[in-house]
C-alpha cells in the first residue's frame, strides 16, 4: 500500500514539475513566471521530502524547511518590488 502511495506521489510531483516548467518557458507576462516559480519551489519541497523518504535519511528534511522559508520570502520580495515598496 505504501509503495503504491509513493508511486502516485512521484507521478503527481513529476507532472507538477513538468507543468510548472512549461508555464515558466512559455509564460506571457512576468507575473505568470513568478507564479510558476513559486509552484516549482513547492514542487521541489515535495520532491526533497519524497527523496528523504525513499533513501531513508531524514536529515534531508532540513533542506526542505529552508525551501519553505525561501518560497514565502521570494514571492513577497518580488510582489513588494512591483508595488514600489522595496
Amino acid at each position, binding site marked *: 500500500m505504501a509503495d503504491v502511495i509513493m508511486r502516485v506521489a512521484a507521478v503527481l510531483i513529476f507532472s507538477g514539475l513538468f507543468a510548472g516548467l512549461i508555464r515558466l518557458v512559455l509564460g506571457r507576462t512576468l507575473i505568470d513566471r513568478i507564479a510558476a516559480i513559486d509552484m516549482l519551489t513547492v514542487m521541489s519541497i515535495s520532491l526533497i521530502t519524497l527523496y528523504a523518504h525513499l*533513501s*531513508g*535519511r*531524514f*536529515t*534531508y528534511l532540513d533542506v526542505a524547511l529552508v525551501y519553505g522559508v525561501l518560497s514565502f520570502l521570494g514571492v513577497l520580495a518580488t510582489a513588494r518590488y512591483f508595488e514600489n515598496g522595496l
Partner: protein
Amino acid sequence: MGFPPVSHLVLATGCSLVLIGFYGMLTHRNILRIIIGFSLIDTGIHMILVATGYITGGTAPIIDEALSLDAAATRSVDPIPSALVVTAIVIGLSVTAIMLAYAIRLYETKQTLSLDAFTESKW
C-alpha cells in the same frame, strides 16, 4: 538501464551551464546581464565539483540511526568537495555583491549600464 551514471548527468549539466553563462557574458552589452552570466558560471562550477564527489549509491556523510559508524566508510559520499563548495558559495556571493556595487557606482556616474558608454576605461 540505458541511463548514464548519475554523476555524468550532473557533470554534463554543469558544463552546459558554464557554456550558457559564458555565452551570456560574451553576447550581452548590459553590465547586470554580464553579472547574471557570471553567477550562472558559478553555479555550474559548483555542480561540477559536487558531482565529482559522488560515490555510486552513496548517502550523506552524517552519522545517525540510518548510517552507523562502521557502514560510513563504504556507503557515504566524499565529504571534501562538499566542504569546499560550501565555502565557494559564500565567496561567490561576496564576489557578486562587489560586482553589483561597482555596477551601481557606474550607473550613478553615467546614468546607463551599457558597456558601449564606458569607452574611456577600455584599454
